[in-house]
Protein backbone atom coordinates (compact mmCIF):
# COMPACT_ATOMS: atom_id res chain seq x y z
CA UNK A 1 0.00 0.00 0.00
CA UNK A 2 1.27 3.46 -0.86
CA UNK A 3 2.16 5.76 2.00
CA UNK A 4 -0.40 8.08 3.52
CA UNK A 5 1.12 11.21 1.98
CA UNK A 6 0.76 10.02 -1.59
CA UNK A 7 -2.68 8.52 -1.01
CA UNK A 8 -3.92 11.76 0.56
CA UNK A 9 -2.40 13.77 -2.27
CA UNK A 10 -4.15 11.65 -4.91
CA UNK A 11 -7.44 11.73 -3.01
CA UNK A 12 -7.41 15.53 -2.79
CA UNK A 13 -6.14 16.02 -6.34
CA UNK A 14 -8.24 13.44 -8.17
CA UNK A 15 -11.39 13.11 -6.09
CA UNK A 16 -11.86 16.41 -4.25
CA UNK A 17 -10.48 18.62 -7.05
CA UNK A 18 -11.59 16.29 -9.88
CA UNK A 19 -8.12 16.33 -11.37
CA UNK A 20 -8.48 20.01 -12.25
CA UNK A 21 -5.29 21.17 -10.47
CA UNK A 22 -1.73 20.04 -9.84
CA UNK A 23 -1.07 19.97 -6.11
CA UNK A 24 2.11 19.74 -4.07
CA UNK A 25 2.37 18.87 -0.39
CA UNK A 26 2.77 22.55 0.47
CA UNK A 27 0.11 24.02 -1.89
CA UNK A 28 -2.23 26.33 0.01
CA UNK A 29 -5.43 24.41 -0.71
CA UNK A 30 -7.80 26.97 0.75
CA UNK A 31 -6.40 30.27 -0.47
CA UNK A 32 -6.02 28.98 -4.03
CA UNK A 33 -9.65 27.85 -3.97
CA UNK A 34 -8.58 24.29 -4.86
CA UNK A 35 -10.69 22.96 -1.99
CA UNK A 36 -14.00 24.42 -0.83
CA UNK A 37 -15.88 23.87 2.43
CA UNK A 38 -17.52 20.67 1.21
CA UNK A 39 -14.08 19.48 0.15
CA UNK A 40 -12.78 20.07 3.68
CA UNK A 41 -15.59 17.92 5.08
CA UNK A 42 -14.76 15.13 2.62
CA UNK A 43 -11.08 15.30 3.52
CA UNK A 44 -11.78 15.03 7.26
CA UNK A 45 -14.03 12.00 6.62
CA UNK A 46 -11.34 10.42 4.46
CA UNK A 47 -8.69 10.99 7.15
CA UNK A 48 -10.93 9.39 9.78
CA UNK A 49 -11.66 6.37 7.55
CA UNK A 50 -8.10 5.85 6.41
CA UNK A 51 -6.13 6.55 9.59
CA UNK A 52 -8.60 5.66 12.33
CA UNK A 53 -8.20 9.01 14.10
CA UNK A 54 -11.21 11.00 15.31
CA UNK A 55 -11.03 14.57 14.00
CA UNK A 56 -12.33 16.96 16.65
CA UNK A 57 -14.28 19.76 14.88
CA UNK A 58 -12.24 22.25 16.90
CA UNK A 59 -9.11 20.98 15.19
CA UNK A 60 -10.39 21.73 11.69
CA UNK A 61 -8.50 25.02 11.50
CA UNK A 62 -6.17 26.85 9.14
CA UNK A 63 -3.26 25.64 11.25
CA UNK A 64 -4.09 21.97 10.62
CA UNK A 65 -5.75 21.97 7.20
CA UNK A 66 -4.21 24.68 5.01
CA UNK A 67 -1.87 22.25 3.20
CA UNK A 68 -1.51 18.49 2.82
CA UNK A 69 1.76 18.77 4.76
CA UNK A 70 -0.07 20.32 7.72
CA UNK A 71 -2.75 17.63 7.58
CA UNK A 72 -0.09 14.93 7.76
CA UNK A 73 1.56 16.60 10.76
CA UNK A 74 -1.85 16.83 12.43
CA UNK A 75 -2.63 13.16 11.73
CA UNK A 76 0.76 12.13 13.17
CA UNK A 77 0.09 14.09 16.36
CA UNK A 78 -3.41 12.67 16.71
CA UNK A 79 -2.26 9.09 16.12
CA UNK A 80 0.23 9.53 18.94
CA UNK A 81 -2.33 11.19 21.25
CA UNK A 82 -5.12 8.76 20.46
CA UNK A 83 -2.78 5.77 20.88
CA UNK A 84 -3.02 4.66 17.26
CA UNK A 85 -0.12 3.15 15.34
CA UNK A 86 1.21 5.25 12.50
CA UNK A 87 1.78 3.41 9.21
Amino acid at each position, binding site marked *: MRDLASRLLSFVQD*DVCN*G*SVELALDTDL*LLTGAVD*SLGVIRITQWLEDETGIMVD*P*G*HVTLENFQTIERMLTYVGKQQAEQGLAAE
Partner: protein
Amino acid sequence: MDDAPTLGELVPRAAERDGDAPAVCHGGTTLTWADAALQAGRLGAALDLAGVAAGDRVGVHLRKSPEAFLAMHAVVQRGAIAVPLDPTAAPAYLTGVTERTGCAVVVTHAPCRRSALALAGGDHPTVHTLVGVAPGDDTAAVRCIGPDEIAGLDPAAPRAVSADHPAYIITTSGSTGVPKGITHTHASALAYVDFKRAAYDLRPSDRISDIAPNHFDISTMALWVTPAVGAANVVVTEPHQMLPASLSQLAADERISIWYSVPYLLTQLLDRGQLDDRDLSALRWVLFGGEMFPPQVLAALMARWPGARFSNVYGPAEVNACTVHHLDGPPRGEEPIAVGGPVDTTEVRLVDLDILGDGDDPGPEPEPGRPGEIWVCARTMMAGYWERPDLDAASIVAGPDGRRWYRTGDLGHRRPTGELVFTGRVDHQVKVRGHRIELEAIEAVLEDAPGVANAVAAVARPGDGADVIVAGVVASAGAAEPPNPQALRRHAADHLPAYAIPVAFLPLTALPTTGSGKLDRRTIRAELAARYRPEGKEST
Protein backbone atom coordinates in the same frame (compact mmCIF):
# COMPACT_ATOMS: atom_id res chain seq x y z
CA MET B 1 -22.68 63.58 9.69
CA ASP B 2 -21.94 65.03 6.26
CA ASP B 3 -23.25 63.08 3.29
CA ALA B 4 -20.79 62.34 0.51
CA PRO B 5 -22.07 63.33 -2.95
CA THR B 6 -20.41 60.31 -4.60
CA LEU B 7 -18.86 57.00 -3.54
CA GLY B 8 -15.43 58.38 -4.41
CA GLU B 9 -15.66 60.91 -1.57
CA LEU B 10 -16.36 58.31 1.13
CA VAL B 11 -12.81 57.30 2.02
CA PRO B 12 -11.23 60.79 1.78
CA ARG B 13 -13.96 62.17 4.05
CA ALA B 14 -13.52 59.33 6.55
CA ALA B 15 -9.80 60.20 6.63
CA GLU B 16 -10.59 63.90 7.20
CA ARG B 17 -13.01 63.13 10.05
CA ASP B 18 -10.78 60.69 11.94
CA GLY B 19 -7.68 59.60 10.06
CA ASP B 20 -6.36 57.49 12.94
CA ALA B 21 -9.48 55.36 13.32
CA PRO B 22 -9.30 51.73 12.13
CA ALA B 23 -10.48 51.29 8.55
CA VAL B 24 -9.58 47.83 7.26
CA CYS B 25 -8.52 44.98 9.55
CA HIS B 26 -6.98 41.81 8.19
CA GLY B 27 -4.76 39.09 9.64
CA GLY B 28 -3.89 41.09 12.75
CA THR B 29 -2.92 44.27 10.89
CA THR B 30 -4.99 47.43 10.64
CA LEU B 31 -5.08 50.20 8.04
CA THR B 32 -6.31 53.52 9.38
CA TRP B 33 -8.60 55.76 7.32
CA ALA B 34 -5.57 57.98 6.60
CA ASP B 35 -3.70 54.90 5.30
CA ALA B 36 -6.70 53.81 3.25
CA ALA B 37 -7.13 57.27 1.69
CA LEU B 38 -3.45 57.42 0.77
CA GLN B 39 -3.35 53.92 -0.70
CA ALA B 40 -6.63 54.26 -2.62
CA GLY B 41 -5.35 57.59 -3.96
CA ARG B 42 -2.11 55.97 -5.17
CA LEU B 43 -4.03 53.12 -6.76
CA GLY B 44 -6.18 55.77 -8.45
CA ALA B 45 -3.02 57.41 -9.81
CA ALA B 46 -1.99 54.00 -11.19
CA LEU B 47 -5.37 53.75 -12.93
CA ASP B 48 -4.74 57.18 -14.46
CA LEU B 49 -1.37 55.91 -15.63
CA ALA B 50 -3.12 52.92 -17.22
CA GLY B 51 -5.28 55.36 -19.14
CA VAL B 52 -8.55 54.82 -17.26
CA ALA B 53 -11.08 57.59 -17.99
CA ALA B 54 -14.41 58.34 -16.32
CA GLY B 55 -16.99 55.78 -17.45
CA ASP B 56 -14.40 53.11 -18.35
CA ARG B 57 -14.99 49.65 -16.91
CA VAL B 58 -12.23 48.29 -14.69
CA GLY B 59 -12.08 44.65 -13.62
CA VAL B 60 -11.43 43.95 -9.93
CA HIS B 61 -9.86 40.51 -9.71
CA LEU B 62 -8.87 39.96 -6.09
CA ARG B 63 -9.34 37.63 -3.17
CA LYS B 64 -10.97 38.90 0.02
CA SER B 65 -8.27 41.32 1.14
CA PRO B 66 -7.59 44.96 2.02
CA GLU B 67 -6.48 45.36 -1.63
CA ALA B 68 -9.97 44.44 -2.80
CA PHE B 69 -11.50 47.13 -0.58
CA LEU B 70 -8.98 49.71 -1.80
CA ALA B 71 -9.39 48.70 -5.46
CA MET B 72 -13.17 49.17 -5.46
CA HIS B 73 -12.79 52.61 -3.88
CA ALA B 74 -9.94 53.59 -6.21
CA VAL B 75 -12.03 52.70 -9.29
CA VAL B 76 -15.08 54.69 -8.22
CA GLN B 77 -12.81 57.59 -7.22
CA ARG B 78 -11.70 57.77 -10.88
CA GLY B 79 -15.34 57.96 -11.99
CA ALA B 80 -14.75 54.58 -13.62
CA ILE B 81 -17.06 51.58 -13.29
CA ALA B 82 -15.84 48.66 -11.16
CA VAL B 83 -16.55 45.13 -12.39
CA PRO B 84 -15.78 42.73 -9.50
CA LEU B 85 -14.69 39.34 -10.90
CA ASP B 86 -14.71 35.92 -9.26
CA PRO B 87 -11.04 34.88 -8.97
CA THR B 88 -12.07 31.21 -8.70
CA ALA B 89 -13.95 31.17 -12.02
CA ALA B 90 -12.48 29.67 -15.19
CA PRO B 91 -10.61 32.11 -17.50
CA ALA B 92 -13.05 31.53 -20.38
CA TYR B 93 -15.97 32.55 -18.19
CA LEU B 94 -14.16 35.64 -16.90
CA THR B 95 -13.03 36.80 -20.35
CA GLY B 96 -16.71 36.53 -21.32
CA VAL B 97 -17.42 39.08 -18.57
CA THR B 98 -14.47 41.37 -19.35
CA GLU B 99 -15.30 41.33 -23.08
CA ARG B 100 -19.00 41.98 -22.57
CA THR B 101 -18.30 44.89 -20.23
CA GLY B 102 -15.24 46.07 -22.17
CA CYS B 103 -12.67 46.02 -19.36
CA ALA B 104 -9.26 47.16 -20.65
CA VAL B 105 -7.69 47.41 -17.19
CA VAL B 106 -7.89 44.93 -14.32
CA VAL B 107 -6.78 45.53 -10.72
CA THR B 108 -5.36 42.38 -9.15
CA HIS B 109 -2.70 41.13 -6.72
CA ALA B 110 0.00 38.47 -6.48
CA PRO B 111 -2.23 35.59 -5.25
CA CYS B 112 -4.34 35.99 -8.42
CA ARG B 113 -1.41 36.60 -10.80
CA ARG B 114 -1.87 33.51 -12.97
CA SER B 115 -5.64 33.85 -13.43
CA ALA B 116 -5.28 37.61 -14.04
CA LEU B 117 -2.73 36.97 -16.79
CA ALA B 118 -5.17 34.54 -18.40
CA LEU B 119 -7.62 37.45 -18.76
CA ALA B 120 -5.18 39.15 -21.10
CA GLY B 121 -4.82 35.99 -23.23
CA GLY B 122 -7.34 34.23 -25.44
CA ASP B 123 -8.41 35.12 -28.96
CA HIS B 124 -9.75 38.62 -28.49
CA PRO B 125 -8.39 39.98 -25.23
CA THR B 126 -9.84 43.32 -24.24
CA VAL B 127 -7.56 43.54 -21.19
CA HIS B 128 -4.27 45.35 -21.89
CA THR B 129 -3.11 46.41 -18.41
CA LEU B 130 -2.92 44.71 -15.02
CA VAL B 131 -2.58 46.96 -11.98
CA GLY B 132 -1.17 45.42 -8.79
CA VAL B 133 1.20 42.75 -10.14
CA ALA B 134 4.81 43.42 -11.13
CA PRO B 135 6.03 42.79 -14.67
CA GLY B 136 7.97 39.54 -15.18
CA ASP B 137 8.91 36.85 -17.68
CA ASP B 138 5.25 35.84 -17.95
CA THR B 139 3.88 39.31 -18.78
CA ALA B 140 5.02 39.89 -22.37
CA ALA B 141 1.45 40.20 -23.65
CA VAL B 142 0.25 42.72 -21.07
CA ARG B 143 1.37 45.90 -19.36
CA CYS B 144 1.80 45.57 -15.59
CA ILE B 145 1.92 48.32 -12.99
CA GLY B 146 3.34 46.63 -9.91
CA PRO B 147 3.06 47.39 -6.16
CA ASP B 148 6.47 49.10 -5.99
CA GLU B 149 5.60 51.46 -8.83
CA ILE B 150 2.20 52.23 -7.26
CA ALA B 151 3.80 52.99 -3.87
CA GLY B 152 5.89 55.69 -5.53
CA LEU B 153 2.95 57.56 -7.10
CA ASP B 154 1.41 60.77 -5.80
CA PRO B 155 -2.17 60.01 -4.71
CA ALA B 156 -4.88 61.24 -7.09
CA ALA B 157 -7.79 63.28 -5.71
CA PRO B 158 -11.25 61.85 -6.53
CA ARG B 159 -12.59 62.85 -9.95
CA ALA B 160 -15.96 64.62 -9.76
CA VAL B 161 -18.84 62.77 -11.40
CA SER B 162 -22.59 63.15 -11.11
CA ALA B 163 -24.48 60.95 -8.68
CA ASP B 164 -26.40 59.18 -11.46
CA HIS B 165 -23.14 58.05 -13.07
CA PRO B 166 -22.65 54.22 -13.05
CA ALA B 167 -20.28 53.06 -10.29
CA TYR B 168 -20.14 49.26 -10.37
CA ILE B 169 -21.52 46.24 -12.18
CA ILE B 170 -22.47 43.01 -10.40
CA THR B 171 -22.64 40.13 -12.87
CA THR B 172 -25.01 37.22 -12.55
CA SER B 173 -25.79 34.40 -14.94
CA GLY B 174 -28.81 35.10 -17.12
CA SER B 175 -31.27 32.36 -18.05
CA THR B 176 -29.47 31.68 -21.36
CA GLY B 177 -26.04 31.35 -19.73
CA VAL B 178 -24.93 34.80 -20.93
CA PRO B 179 -23.89 36.83 -17.87
CA LYS B 180 -25.92 39.97 -17.24
CA GLY B 181 -24.49 43.05 -15.59
CA ILE B 182 -26.50 44.72 -12.83
CA THR B 183 -25.37 48.34 -13.05
CA HIS B 184 -25.55 50.46 -9.90
CA THR B 185 -24.93 54.19 -9.72
CA HIS B 186 -23.31 56.34 -7.04
CA ALA B 187 -26.84 57.43 -6.08
CA SER B 188 -28.26 53.89 -5.73
CA ALA B 189 -25.26 52.77 -3.67
CA LEU B 190 -25.42 55.84 -1.41
CA ALA B 191 -29.16 55.28 -0.87
CA TYR B 192 -28.22 51.77 0.22
CA VAL B 193 -25.67 53.24 2.65
CA ASP B 194 -28.34 55.55 4.11
CA PHE B 195 -30.73 52.66 4.57
CA LYS B 196 -28.17 50.39 6.25
CA ARG B 197 -26.85 53.11 8.53
CA ALA B 198 -30.32 53.91 9.81
CA ALA B 199 -31.65 50.33 9.95
CA TYR B 200 -28.85 49.07 12.23
CA ASP B 201 -27.91 52.31 13.98
CA LEU B 202 -24.34 51.90 12.69
CA ARG B 203 -21.64 53.81 14.60
CA PRO B 204 -17.91 54.52 14.31
CA SER B 205 -17.25 51.97 17.07
CA ASP B 206 -18.75 49.17 14.97
CA ARG B 207 -16.57 46.47 13.45
CA ILE B 208 -18.37 45.16 10.38
CA SER B 209 -17.69 41.77 8.81
CA ASP B 210 -16.59 41.80 5.16
CA ILE B 211 -17.36 38.22 4.19
CA ALA B 212 -19.12 37.80 0.86
CA PRO B 213 -17.06 37.39 -2.33
CA ASN B 214 -16.43 40.73 -4.03
CA HIS B 215 -18.59 39.79 -7.02
CA PHE B 216 -21.56 39.04 -4.74
CA ASP B 217 -23.80 42.02 -3.92
CA ILE B 218 -23.78 41.28 -0.18
CA SER B 219 -20.13 42.45 -0.18
CA THR B 220 -21.13 46.02 -1.00
CA MET B 221 -22.48 46.70 2.49
CA ALA B 222 -19.14 46.64 4.34
CA LEU B 223 -17.46 48.20 1.30
CA TRP B 224 -19.50 51.40 1.15
CA VAL B 225 -20.94 51.62 4.69
CA THR B 226 -17.70 51.45 6.70
CA PRO B 227 -16.17 54.70 5.35
CA ALA B 228 -19.57 56.43 5.43
CA VAL B 229 -19.94 55.62 9.12
CA GLY B 230 -16.26 55.60 10.05
CA ALA B 231 -16.60 52.00 11.26
CA ALA B 232 -13.96 49.29 10.77
CA ASN B 233 -14.13 46.79 7.91
CA VAL B 234 -13.03 43.34 9.12
CA VAL B 235 -11.86 41.21 6.18
CA VAL B 236 -12.85 37.56 6.48
CA THR B 237 -10.75 35.55 4.01
CA GLU B 238 -11.98 32.59 1.97
CA PRO B 239 -9.96 30.01 3.98
CA HIS B 240 -11.64 31.19 7.19
CA GLN B 241 -15.03 30.72 5.57
CA MET B 242 -14.23 27.09 4.82
CA LEU B 243 -13.19 26.29 8.38
CA PRO B 244 -15.88 27.25 10.90
CA ALA B 245 -13.56 26.82 13.90
CA SER B 246 -11.16 29.39 12.39
CA LEU B 247 -14.05 31.62 11.34
CA SER B 248 -15.42 31.85 14.88
CA GLN B 249 -11.90 32.48 16.21
CA LEU B 250 -11.49 35.39 13.81
CA ALA B 251 -14.90 36.83 14.81
CA ALA B 252 -13.84 36.66 18.47
CA ASP B 253 -10.30 38.01 17.95
CA GLU B 254 -11.50 40.90 15.77
CA ARG B 255 -14.48 41.62 18.05
CA ILE B 256 -16.87 41.78 15.09
CA SER B 257 -20.00 43.69 16.12
CA ILE B 258 -22.03 43.52 12.88
CA TRP B 259 -22.21 40.20 11.02
CA TYR B 260 -23.64 39.93 7.51
CA SER B 261 -23.58 36.69 5.53
CA VAL B 262 -25.69 34.04 3.89
CA PRO B 263 -27.40 31.65 6.35
CA TYR B 264 -25.13 28.80 5.22
CA LEU B 265 -22.10 30.25 7.02
CA LEU B 266 -24.08 30.83 10.21
CA THR B 267 -25.30 27.24 10.09
CA GLN B 268 -21.68 26.13 9.72
CA LEU B 269 -20.69 28.26 12.73
CA LEU B 270 -23.41 26.70 14.83
CA ASP B 271 -22.51 23.14 13.78
CA ARG B 272 -18.72 23.23 13.75
CA GLY B 273 -17.66 26.65 15.04
CA GLN B 274 -16.73 25.57 18.58
CA LEU B 275 -18.92 28.36 19.90
CA ASP B 276 -18.58 27.14 23.51
CA ASP B 277 -14.95 28.21 23.39
CA ARG B 278 -15.39 31.58 21.67
CA ASP B 279 -16.14 34.98 23.19
CA LEU B 280 -18.48 36.63 20.68
CA SER B 281 -19.94 39.12 23.16
CA ALA B 282 -19.05 42.04 20.86
CA LEU B 283 -21.57 40.80 18.31
CA ARG B 284 -24.60 43.10 18.51
CA TRP B 285 -26.39 42.50 15.21
CA VAL B 286 -26.56 39.49 12.88
CA LEU B 287 -27.82 40.16 9.35
CA PHE B 288 -28.54 37.29 7.03
CA GLY B 289 -29.95 37.12 3.53
CA GLY B 290 -29.56 35.69 0.07
CA GLU B 291 -31.53 32.54 0.79
CA MET B 292 -34.05 31.20 3.30
CA PHE B 293 -32.80 30.41 6.80
CA PRO B 294 -34.17 27.15 8.25
CA PRO B 295 -36.20 28.51 11.23
CA GLN B 296 -35.02 25.86 13.69
CA VAL B 297 -31.36 26.56 12.97
CA LEU B 298 -31.96 30.28 13.39
CA ALA B 299 -33.75 29.69 16.71
CA ALA B 300 -30.77 27.66 17.96
CA LEU B 301 -28.38 30.42 16.94
CA MET B 302 -30.48 33.09 18.66
CA ALA B 303 -30.38 31.04 21.85
CA ARG B 304 -26.57 30.97 21.54
CA TRP B 305 -26.19 34.71 21.14
CA PRO B 306 -28.87 36.28 23.36
CA GLY B 307 -27.13 39.66 23.29
CA ALA B 308 -27.40 40.06 19.51
CA ARG B 309 -30.30 41.23 17.39
CA PHE B 310 -31.16 39.25 14.26
CA SER B 311 -32.51 40.55 10.95
CA ASN B 312 -33.60 38.91 7.71
CA VAL B 313 -32.44 41.04 4.80
CA TYR B 314 -34.28 40.85 1.49
CA GLY B 315 -33.67 42.21 -1.96
CA PRO B 316 -32.24 40.95 -5.27
CA ALA B 317 -28.96 42.55 -6.38
CA GLU B 318 -30.95 44.72 -8.84
CA VAL B 319 -32.45 46.69 -5.95
CA ASN B 320 -29.75 45.98 -3.37
CA ALA B 321 -30.78 44.41 -0.08
CA CYS B 322 -33.55 46.99 0.05
CA THR B 323 -35.69 45.86 2.96
CA VAL B 324 -35.35 44.08 6.27
CA HIS B 325 -37.34 42.20 8.89
CA HIS B 326 -36.04 42.57 12.45
CA LEU B 327 -36.90 39.50 14.51
CA ASP B 328 -38.64 40.20 17.82
CA GLY B 329 -37.85 36.71 19.05
CA PRO B 330 -36.89 33.27 17.80
CA PRO B 331 -39.04 31.90 14.95
CA ARG B 332 -41.73 29.47 16.05
CA GLY B 333 -42.17 26.14 14.32
CA GLU B 334 -41.34 25.84 10.64
CA GLU B 335 -43.01 29.08 9.50
CA PRO B 336 -40.70 30.86 7.05
CA ILE B 337 -39.16 34.10 8.31
CA ALA B 338 -40.80 37.28 7.00
CA VAL B 339 -38.79 39.43 4.60
CA GLY B 340 -39.88 42.83 5.86
CA GLY B 341 -42.04 45.69 4.82
CA PRO B 342 -41.48 49.14 3.38
CA VAL B 343 -38.68 51.35 4.71
CA ASP B 344 -37.74 54.98 3.98
CA THR B 345 -35.91 54.11 0.77
CA THR B 346 -38.14 51.30 -0.43
CA GLU B 347 -41.71 50.38 -1.30
CA VAL B 348 -42.63 46.75 -1.76
CA ARG B 349 -45.86 45.52 -3.28
CA LEU B 350 -47.33 42.19 -4.15
CA VAL B 351 -48.86 41.89 -7.61
CA ASP B 352 -51.62 39.40 -8.43
CA LEU B 353 -50.29 36.68 -10.72
CA ASP B 354 -53.54 36.66 -12.73
CA ILE B 355 -53.09 40.20 -13.94
CA LEU B 356 -49.36 39.97 -14.69
CA GLY B 357 -48.73 40.81 -18.30
CA ASP B 358 -51.79 43.07 -18.59
CA GLY B 359 -49.78 46.26 -18.96
CA ASP B 360 -48.01 48.12 -16.22
CA ASP B 361 -50.90 48.72 -13.82
CA PRO B 362 -50.30 46.27 -10.99
CA GLY B 363 -53.85 46.65 -9.60
CA PRO B 364 -54.77 45.93 -5.97
CA GLU B 365 -52.68 43.53 -3.87
CA PRO B 366 -53.90 39.94 -3.55
CA GLU B 367 -55.70 38.97 -0.33
CA PRO B 368 -53.52 37.73 2.56
CA GLY B 369 -52.36 34.16 1.92
CA ARG B 370 -52.74 34.43 -1.87
CA PRO B 371 -49.51 34.37 -3.87
CA GLY B 372 -48.23 37.25 -5.93
CA GLU B 373 -45.03 38.50 -7.53
CA ILE B 374 -42.94 40.88 -5.39
CA TRP B 375 -42.34 44.28 -7.04
CA VAL B 376 -39.92 46.82 -5.57
CA CYS B 377 -39.66 50.59 -6.05
CA ALA B 378 -36.54 51.82 -4.29
CA ARG B 379 -33.88 54.52 -4.35
CA THR B 380 -31.43 51.63 -4.03
CA MET B 381 -32.44 50.27 -7.46
CA MET B 382 -29.95 49.74 -10.29
CA ALA B 383 -29.83 51.98 -13.36
CA GLY B 384 -30.39 48.88 -15.48
CA TYR B 385 -28.64 45.88 -17.00
CA TRP B 386 -25.38 46.70 -18.75
CA GLU B 387 -26.13 47.20 -22.47
CA ARG B 388 -29.21 44.98 -22.29
CA PRO B 389 -32.28 47.16 -22.95
CA ASP B 390 -34.24 43.96 -23.70
CA LEU B 391 -33.72 42.77 -20.11
CA ASP B 392 -34.57 46.23 -18.76
CA ALA B 393 -37.82 46.22 -20.71
CA ALA B 394 -38.74 42.79 -19.34
CA SER B 395 -38.12 43.57 -15.68
CA ILE B 396 -38.50 47.32 -15.13
CA VAL B 397 -41.99 48.76 -15.38
CA ALA B 398 -43.33 52.27 -14.91
CA GLY B 399 -46.03 52.28 -12.26
CA PRO B 400 -49.22 54.34 -12.64
CA ASP B 401 -47.38 57.13 -10.79
CA GLY B 402 -44.55 57.08 -13.36
CA ARG B 403 -41.98 55.70 -10.94
CA ARG B 404 -39.79 52.73 -11.91
CA TRP B 405 -40.68 49.40 -10.33
CA TYR B 406 -38.52 46.28 -10.51
CA ARG B 407 -40.30 42.97 -11.05
CA THR B 408 -38.22 40.64 -8.85
CA GLY B 409 -39.55 37.35 -10.18
CA ASP B 410 -39.86 36.36 -6.51
CA LEU B 411 -43.13 34.93 -5.26
CA GLY B 412 -44.59 35.79 -1.90
CA HIS B 413 -47.74 36.24 0.11
CA ARG B 414 -48.86 38.46 2.94
CA ARG B 415 -49.72 37.14 6.35
CA PRO B 416 -52.91 38.53 7.92
CA THR B 417 -50.57 40.73 10.01
CA GLY B 418 -49.30 42.33 6.78
CA GLU B 419 -45.86 40.72 6.92
CA LEU B 420 -44.49 39.63 3.54
CA VAL B 421 -43.18 36.06 3.18
CA PHE B 422 -40.97 34.86 0.32
CA THR B 423 -42.15 31.52 -1.06
CA GLY B 424 -40.24 30.84 -4.27
CA ARG B 425 -39.64 31.94 -7.84
CA VAL B 426 -41.81 32.48 -10.90
CA ASP B 427 -38.97 30.96 -12.97
CA HIS B 428 -36.33 28.24 -12.43
CA GLN B 429 -33.85 30.40 -10.52
CA VAL B 430 -32.53 28.69 -7.41
CA LYS B 431 -30.23 29.78 -4.58
CA VAL B 432 -27.28 27.70 -3.50
CA ARG B 433 -25.39 29.18 -0.57
CA GLY B 434 -26.90 32.53 -1.47
CA HIS B 435 -25.75 32.50 -5.10
CA ARG B 436 -28.42 33.03 -7.73
CA ILE B 437 -28.37 30.20 -10.23
CA GLU B 438 -30.59 29.83 -13.27
CA LEU B 439 -31.09 26.12 -13.90
CA GLU B 440 -31.97 26.91 -17.53
CA ALA B 441 -28.58 28.57 -18.00
CA ILE B 442 -26.78 25.43 -16.87
CA GLU B 443 -28.97 23.34 -19.18
CA ALA B 444 -28.34 25.65 -22.14
CA VAL B 445 -24.58 25.54 -21.58
CA LEU B 446 -24.48 21.74 -21.25
CA GLU B 447 -26.64 21.24 -24.34
CA ASP B 448 -23.94 23.12 -26.28
CA ALA B 449 -21.30 20.60 -25.18
CA PRO B 450 -20.20 18.02 -27.76
CA GLY B 451 -22.10 14.74 -27.56
CA VAL B 452 -24.99 16.09 -25.45
CA ALA B 453 -28.54 16.05 -26.79
CA ASN B 454 -30.38 17.22 -23.68
CA ALA B 455 -29.44 18.34 -20.21
CA VAL B 456 -31.43 18.93 -17.05
CA ALA B 457 -30.04 20.65 -13.95
CA ALA B 458 -31.41 20.23 -10.44
CA VAL B 459 -30.70 21.11 -6.83
CA ALA B 460 -29.86 18.14 -4.61
CA ARG B 461 -29.81 18.18 -0.82
CA PRO B 462 -27.32 15.47 0.19
CA GLY B 463 -28.43 15.61 3.82
CA ASP B 464 -25.09 16.48 5.38
CA GLY B 465 -25.39 20.18 4.81
CA ALA B 466 -25.34 22.38 1.77
CA ASP B 467 -27.39 22.15 -1.38
CA VAL B 468 -25.49 21.30 -4.55
CA ILE B 469 -26.24 21.44 -8.28
CA VAL B 470 -26.39 18.15 -10.18
CA ALA B 471 -26.92 17.67 -13.90
CA GLY B 472 -28.43 14.87 -15.93
CA VAL B 473 -27.32 14.50 -19.53
CA VAL B 474 -28.68 12.59 -22.50
CA ALA B 475 -26.10 11.54 -25.10
CA SER B 476 -26.64 12.62 -28.72
CA ALA B 477 -28.02 9.98 -31.03
CA GLY B 478 -25.07 8.20 -32.62
CA ALA B 479 -22.60 9.19 -29.89
CA ALA B 480 -20.21 6.28 -29.38
CA GLU B 481 -20.20 6.61 -25.61
CA PRO B 482 -21.91 8.72 -22.94
CA PRO B 483 -20.49 12.24 -22.44
CA ASN B 484 -17.40 12.21 -20.26
CA PRO B 485 -18.00 13.91 -16.88
CA GLN B 486 -14.53 15.52 -16.84
CA ALA B 487 -15.09 17.06 -20.27
CA LEU B 488 -18.54 18.26 -19.22
CA ARG B 489 -17.11 19.82 -16.07
CA ARG B 490 -14.47 21.71 -18.08
CA HIS B 491 -17.10 22.87 -20.57
CA ALA B 492 -19.35 24.04 -17.71
CA ALA B 493 -16.45 25.86 -16.00
CA ASP B 494 -15.66 27.77 -19.20
CA HIS B 495 -19.19 29.12 -19.48
CA LEU B 496 -20.62 29.34 -15.97
CA PRO B 497 -19.67 31.06 -12.72
CA ALA B 498 -17.82 28.72 -10.36
CA TYR B 499 -20.79 28.35 -8.00
CA ALA B 500 -23.05 27.11 -10.84
CA ILE B 501 -20.85 24.21 -11.98
CA PRO B 502 -22.65 20.91 -11.29
CA VAL B 503 -20.90 18.62 -8.79
CA ALA B 504 -22.08 15.52 -10.65
CA PHE B 505 -23.13 14.61 -14.20
CA LEU B 506 -25.52 11.67 -14.20
CA PRO B 507 -26.46 9.85 -17.40
CA LEU B 508 -30.15 9.97 -18.32
CA THR B 509 -31.91 7.49 -20.58
CA ALA B 510 -35.64 7.39 -19.99
CA LEU B 511 -36.99 10.88 -20.53
CA PRO B 512 -40.53 11.61 -19.43
CA THR B 513 -42.29 14.24 -21.50
CA THR B 514 -45.15 16.58 -20.69
CA GLY B 515 -48.52 16.50 -22.43
CA SER B 516 -47.21 18.96 -25.02
CA GLY B 517 -44.26 16.70 -25.82
CA LYS B 518 -41.59 18.79 -24.06
CA LEU B 519 -39.13 17.26 -21.62
CA ASP B 520 -40.83 16.99 -18.24
CA ARG B 521 -38.04 18.82 -16.47
CA ARG B 522 -39.88 18.98 -13.18
CA THR B 523 -40.08 15.17 -12.94
CA ILE B 524 -36.50 14.72 -14.14
CA ARG B 525 -35.24 17.27 -11.62
CA ALA B 526 -36.93 15.41 -8.77
CA GLU B 527 -35.41 12.14 -9.99
CA LEU B 528 -31.92 13.66 -10.25
CA ALA B 529 -32.14 15.14 -6.77
CA ALA B 530 -33.17 11.75 -5.40
CA ARG B 531 -30.45 9.84 -7.31
CA TYR B 532 -27.49 12.02 -6.32
CA ARG B 533 -25.16 10.70 -3.62
CA PRO B 534 -21.96 12.56 -2.73
CA GLU B 535 -18.87 10.61 -3.76
CA GLY B 536 -17.40 8.41 -1.08
CA LYS B 537 -20.74 8.30 0.76
CA GLU B 538 -22.28 5.22 -0.92
CA SER B 539 -21.19 2.82 1.79
CA THR B 540 -22.52 4.83 4.74
